[in-house]
């Protein structure tokens, strides 16, 4: 791995060579990552992975067209390859929408370091000790647990440095620790699986007791389930399912999708698109977020904003290119060559999970949605998904259900949300975290055994 000074020299070299290839504006970034992961199986450290990676990405504008190229080789030949291939790409592009290389005159140097002592503390031996103990603890949870098929703990560190012809220097780094376990339980000839995860940047903050409590519930409470008759149900969509569901449709808030006519939210800013109890907000610097995002990939400062406030669609997400097309400012959502969202939150309500169940009286509590990569039409919003969950009878969560699907439409669901809970959890989604509680959705189609 090259050191940061050498990387800086390499970037400067690329910037000095770019005009030779006909570029008018250009930007180059260096990124590097280090990772370590252990997996435990049957009382042994069954696998250990360790990696070092680095790479360069070039973006350049020539004849009004912007193209990019990437390599993980780091020498002058690699730079020539980057410039040459981006230049060739510019020659075939005929994008009507102008793209930009940018530097905020008020913030030409953007530096944000979030590196912790994770890597010095999270050594192979500390992970191995925790992993082996955790496997034993999982087996001790319940006699029905027959195997821990997957248990891994990993630590990742990444940094990115960027320079451009407009004078931008941007640097950010962060690290991330995650743990995932999945177990198999067997009872009366039935086999069930369940898993749970944890992430953070300090393994000492891993609360094993809390983790095991949820884990036990997710693995051992699924036995004896039956299907339910097909029909319309009031459901609680559990917090994990809320995150997977709403993140699947986030692309519809992209101004790019709207401008290209592939989001049904196009031209609907200011309109009530959801129930009044529902608000969705992006807070890039959210206090409780593990990784804060002060600026986006284009060097634009990020902003706090409601996407939906009390049911009303407030604002779409813009990068430099889509904002320019509409004559407005970027919202700081230019991420990795497209549009992305950082730390996002569904604003919680008052009721906890039991309160939501009481509110429903009878219905279903859906804890997991499967097949989200296939069973949804992200444009029309239609979905039909295999799910897991429990019955709600007399205001209490009771026995499990199995072999059912829920089907409806995303845009209809937004308007059918009748209560938002307060049992917030979070999940890391790539460019930020998604925080969400469980919610009640009225009148949703369930396919079961009739």
């Amino acid at each position: 791995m090259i050191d940061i000074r050498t990387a800086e020299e390499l970037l400067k070299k690329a910037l000095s060579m770019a005009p030779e290839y006909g570029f008018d504006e250009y930007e180059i970034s260096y990124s590097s990552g280090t990772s370590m992961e252990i997996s435990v199986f049957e009382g042994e450290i069954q696998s250990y992975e360790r990696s070092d990676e680095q790479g360069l990405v070039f973006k350049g504008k020539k004849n009004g067209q912007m193209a990019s190229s990437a390599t993980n080789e780091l020498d002058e030949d690699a730079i020539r390859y980057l410039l040459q291939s981006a230049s060739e790409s510019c020659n075939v592009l005929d994008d009507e929408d102008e793209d930009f290389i940018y530097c905020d005159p008020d913030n030409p140097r953007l530096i944000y370091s979030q590196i912790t002592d994770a890597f010095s503390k999270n050594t192979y031996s500390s992970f191995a000790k925790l992993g082996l103990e955790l496997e034993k603890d999982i087996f001790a949870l319940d006699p029905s647990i027959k195997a821990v098929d997957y248990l891994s703990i990993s630590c990742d560190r990444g940094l990115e440095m960027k320079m451009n012809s407009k004078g931008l220097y941007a640097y950010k780094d962060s690290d991330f620790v995650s743990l995932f376990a999945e177990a198999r339980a067997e009872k009366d000839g039935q086999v069930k699986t369940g898993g749970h995860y944890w992430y953070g940047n300090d393994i000492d903050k891993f609360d094993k007791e809390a983790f095991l409590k949820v884990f036990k519930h997710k693995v051992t409470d699924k036995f004896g389930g039956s299907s339910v008759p097909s029909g319309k149900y009031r459901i609680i969509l559990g917090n994990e399912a809320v995150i997977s569901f709403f993140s699947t449709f986030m692309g519809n808030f992209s101004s790019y999708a709207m401008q290209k006519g592939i989001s049904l939210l196009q031209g609907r800013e200011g309109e009530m698109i959801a129930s009044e109890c529902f608000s969705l907000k992006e807070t890039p610097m959210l206090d409780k977020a593990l990784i804060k995002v002060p600026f986006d990939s284009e060097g634009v400062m990020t902003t706090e904003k409601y996407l939906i406030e009390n049911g009303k669609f407030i604002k779409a997400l813009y990068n430099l290119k889509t904002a320019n097309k509409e004559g407005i400012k970027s919202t700081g959502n230019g991420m990795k060559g497209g549009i992305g969202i950082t730390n996002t939150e569904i604003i919680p309500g008052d009721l906890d999970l039991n309160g939501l169940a009481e509110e429903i009286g009878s219905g279903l509590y859906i804890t997991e949605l499967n097949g989200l990569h296939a069973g949804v039409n992200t444009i029309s919003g239609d979905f039909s998904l295999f799910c897991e969950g429990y019955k709600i009878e007399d205001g209490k969560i009771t026995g499990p259900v199995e072999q059912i699907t829920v089907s409806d439409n995303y845009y209809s669901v937004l308007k059918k949300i009748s209560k938002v809970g307060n049992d917030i959890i979070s999940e890391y989604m790539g460019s930020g975290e998604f925080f969400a509680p469980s919610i009640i959705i009225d009148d949703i189609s369930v396919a079961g055994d009739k």
Partner: protein
Amino acid sequence: MLNDANIMRIMEAAMSRNADFADIFIEKRSTSSVGLLNGKVIKAGAGCDSGVGIRLMAGTNVVYVYSNDNDAESLIKLAKEAADALKGGDKGMIKELQEKSFSTPCDIKIDPMSVKKSDNVDFLRRSSDLALSYDPMITQVAASYTASKRMFRVVNSEGLNKEEEQTRMRFSIETIATKGNEKQTGRIAPGSMRGYEFINEYPIDDKTRECCDTALRMVNAGYAPSGKMPVVLGNGFGGVIFHEACGHSLESTAVGIKSSCFTDMLGKQIASPIVSAYDNARIKGEWGSYYTDDEGNESSDLLLIENGILKNYLVDKLGGRRMNCNPTGCARRQDYTYAPTSRMSNTYIAKGNDDPKDIIADTEYGIYCSQMGGGSVDTTTGEFNFAVNEGYMIRNGKIEEPVRGATLIGKGAEILMNIDRVGNDLELAAGMCGSISGGVPVTVGQPTIRVSSILVGGREDEEA
């Protein structure tokens, strides 16, 4: 690139402690792509990556380290770290390196990587223009082309020394039909390891029209009904049912730790007697093919199921150690950043005897799924789900109105036993499969088949 002397120094470092086996995977990849939206070229890109993965084994314990720092001294240091981290095992010997052998499953006259981007653009624009003028309801057309070349060399402590080159290309056309607030898509996405002649011979005009027709029919379709019913699955990408419902559960990743629903089932009836299935990585020029797998073993044409009886699992080296059997040449990975695991290649249900028309004619009521979307499976419970992209009601032996928004769910073991008709129209289709060793190109396939009962998740009781 690393020379043989340095490769052996890395090997010595890897085997310096208690590893009984080590392999070194050296890879170089390059890609070229263009993307059009509504006839305008909005994306063009290129990439080039290389890296090295070093795997050490002691019994069934594995250490995997990788880096794109191709400097020999850095890699030796990494290999030593790996050796220190490996637990258990007895120190193995390093055998002398065999002479390097080269293979390629490609069937290429015109190298896709050598074709100018402007030619790719012309091809995609032809389809795009045709689609946009096909019907006023076709409002968007996205088209893309990607070519990639992957060269890798595998050297192991047993003297194995293999090199393979794989050049693949794939393009996709996605048409969107709009009716009020409703948008539905039609999609084609063929892929191959043949040369650019594949594109030159491809009936792009007809396929584009079919793609538009799908989107137009679906945007006018009502919702699918819910409940258990007979389902006729069309040929080609319909094979995703077998890939999900059975294939993944036959991989040694699951079978080797006894977590698969098909563990200890060799020689037993796991499917209806009219079902035979293969995983054949050796079809020259096919999208999911390879001749040498990512741990250097020769790939195979593997009989998985014969007349309903389970004949073979897909086994990689680690799986072979766990299951006490030989690898079947199915170890694959997305790239050097993943350790290899058992994966599928070109996996299909073999052709049967029925005329597809008769299968429909003999079905009183059910759904005909002519185009499948993707899906997923829990290999332990066998529970799967997959989406229907284009479906029709069958009533009284006739294909009737189109229906949308259906998902098929069930348990693999039950579905396989419930296949009651197998057509004679076998076809393969390209796809990408994601699993613990990353995304790899695979082909799925089948003739038209009928499953006597699957749970369909739809919502018939609403207005379209």
